């Protein structure tokens, strides 16, 4: 049973570019959450997707957007990249519409903005 997978592992972009990160949830999970983890800090909640809609959102600008597909996989898009967007982006999946405390994390995507 595959766990949460994320791609790519690493990514280097320049300021102003756009980036798309991908996440496949654990088998049987229908809810995907995204977190940003700056170097040396704890993860910060970006948003959560369920039934192909954004259900919750943290304190992030509209440059951060997402999508969930019918197979429950998800994408995180960041437009007009800033140096401060450099971080580890973590995806976590949950079963039952996120109505449990169970949350499984992927290995993350390390984004570097130059």
């Amino acid at each position, binding site marked *: 049973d595959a766990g949460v997978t994320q791609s790519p592992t690493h990514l280097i972009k320049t300021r102003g570019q756009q980036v798309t990160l991908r996440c496949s949830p654990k088998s049987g999970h229908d809810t995907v*959450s995204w977190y940003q983890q700056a170097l040396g800090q*704890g*993860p910060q909640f970006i948003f*959560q997707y369920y039934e192909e809609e954004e*259900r919750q959102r943290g304190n992030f600008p509209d440059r951060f957007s997402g999508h969930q597909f019918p197979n429950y996989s998800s994408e995180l898009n960041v437009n007009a990249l800033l140096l401060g967007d450099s971080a580890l982006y973590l995806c976590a999946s949950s079963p039952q519409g*996120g109505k449990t*405390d169970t*949350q499984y*994390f992927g*290995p993350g995507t390390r984004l570097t903005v130059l």
Partner: protein
Amino acid sequence: AQTVTQSQPEMSVQEAETVTLSCTYDTSENNYYLFWYKQPPSRQMILVIRQEAYKQQNATENRFSVNFQKAAKSFSLKISDSQLGDTAMYFCAFMKGGQAAGNKLTFGGGTRVLVKP
């Protein structure tokens, strides 16, 4: 809004000894969960232990145990018989309970634990 505070940026412990990590949180909720996650250099966030706020009994998972003081809003983690593989960042996290809440995690800033041989 909930906040989680970890006051110890870094701790070191000798192999086989015990180390205790501190965590305090602030919330007006009565129904919630608390977690300790481990993040080794591989970056994978791994759940170490969880505690339901309505349970008075402290959670235990093998060498890991917590001291949950609800009134004081304190949730410390004790690692007994420390092993080299315990070297990692440890994050305390809060989740609001209830069916309509969804399961967003609020994390503390982390404590780096170094186990020395």
